[in-house]
């Protein structure tokens, strides 16, 4: 079913500079696979070498963290929003380097 994946600013460069991407998927795993198949470069930013989601990248279905749902197996329903939220560190003087 159609769901929207929101791409965070730091990763937009690897996803055709888009804010969000519409994909067809029935689980979170399928949605992310569909996304990384379309944008291969995104893969190494989302997954570690062992195939697990990186520990500084969180994925939410609507406002719930998938770590507290069924992770990759979390079911999606039509109109759900999947958000990718990586850690960012900026705030003081050297953010521009």
């Amino acid at each position: 079913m159609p769901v929207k994946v929101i791409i965070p600013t730091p990763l937009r460069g690897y996803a055709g500079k888009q804010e969000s991407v519409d994909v067809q998927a029935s689980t979170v795993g399928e949605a992310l696979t569909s996304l990384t198949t379309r944008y291969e470069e995104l893969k190494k930013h989302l997954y570690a070498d062992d195939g697990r989601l990186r520990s500084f990248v969180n994925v939410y279905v609507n406002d719930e963290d998938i770590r507290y749902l069924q992770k990759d197996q979390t079911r999606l329903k039509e109109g759900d929003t999947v958000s990718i939220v990586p850690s960012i560190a900026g705030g003081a003087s050297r953010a521009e380097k």
Partner: protein
Amino acid sequence: MATKTDLAAPAGAALSNEEILRYSRHLIMPEVGMDGQLKLKQAKVLCIGTGGLGAPLGLYLAAAGVGRLGIVDFDVVDLTNLQRQILFSTGDVGEPKIEAAAARLRGLNPDIQIDRHETRLTSENALDLFKDYDIIVDGTDNFPTRYLVNDACILLGKPNVYGSIFRFEGQVSIFGYPDGPCYRCLYPEPPPPGLVPSCAEGGVLGVLPGIVGAVQAAEAIKLILGKGDPLVGRLLLFDALAMRFRELKLRKNPECPVCGNHPTVTKLIDYAEFCGIRGEEAPAPQTSVPEITPRELKSRLDRGDDLFILDVREPHEYQICNLNGYLIPLGDLPKRVSELDSSREIIAHCRSGKRSAEATQFLQKAGFRKVLNLKGGILAWSDEVDPAVPKY
């Protein structure tokens, strides 16, 4: 560590007539009132960093009458800071941030105590610095310090008002609140240095830290007043381009190594090591690519050598300044490599020499024999050859 305290009037249990006038817009509001204003006067808040986030934080906390405001910074005001760090004026460039910030805050509110901690926050001094304050606000700019602030707050049981920004997006939450989650519950580990966006993708919309820092200030003030719903267990996301706030649920992780049921981190650690880097910033990758200095390049160009200048920056950077090079952004190089003639000698350059080192390495692997990286990039070219080329 240099800690200086500007003593104002001793914090009494009452407001002077002048203070009553100063805070009248607070006092006439039932959510603050005299009780709340006295709580603000007795509050002790430590602000880590006086940069983009620290500026609105410091200004609003001082203006609100937080009785004791500590600021931690060790940096010097730079011209590039002024685009967003509204604590500072053009005349402050070159001055220690801590002094410029304290002078500005003192000018805004002479009735409060300002503690100047001119030091880098470390695992050795953090607990000692934090212990005298009720609330810590995190306005730092790097992962090691963020994990350090988090862990120190958990170990001391102090709330940590967290804010972070990137380009035009920000995050805010409160960590270390009783029974609430911490930064490690949100992100157990930092990204490895190679994967954080490089200088090519950096930058920040000047007004963004103003908005995010003001949200942090509001949360700190609410914590002091004990009013409203604090941003505990919620991660606020702000996107200035879309002009949208979103909120995500944030849970306490029972397995969290710092605040979980069986903590394994019981004292402060080496956060540079934890983040996979030595020192505050990731060192440039160890590359052994062949290089050319700006002066050598200049003399070879003057001699009329046939050199192909390849600029691997982004188009918007090319508009700022360029060396008349052929532009292929680093990210596009793999698919546009056929545009290059491997029989010609190629000089790759970027702003600082880091991206072009990667480009040089890539081209070498792709079979190009005659590629040199311009050492220090356009910055060094401006310093050593042509000061008319602006640095950015």
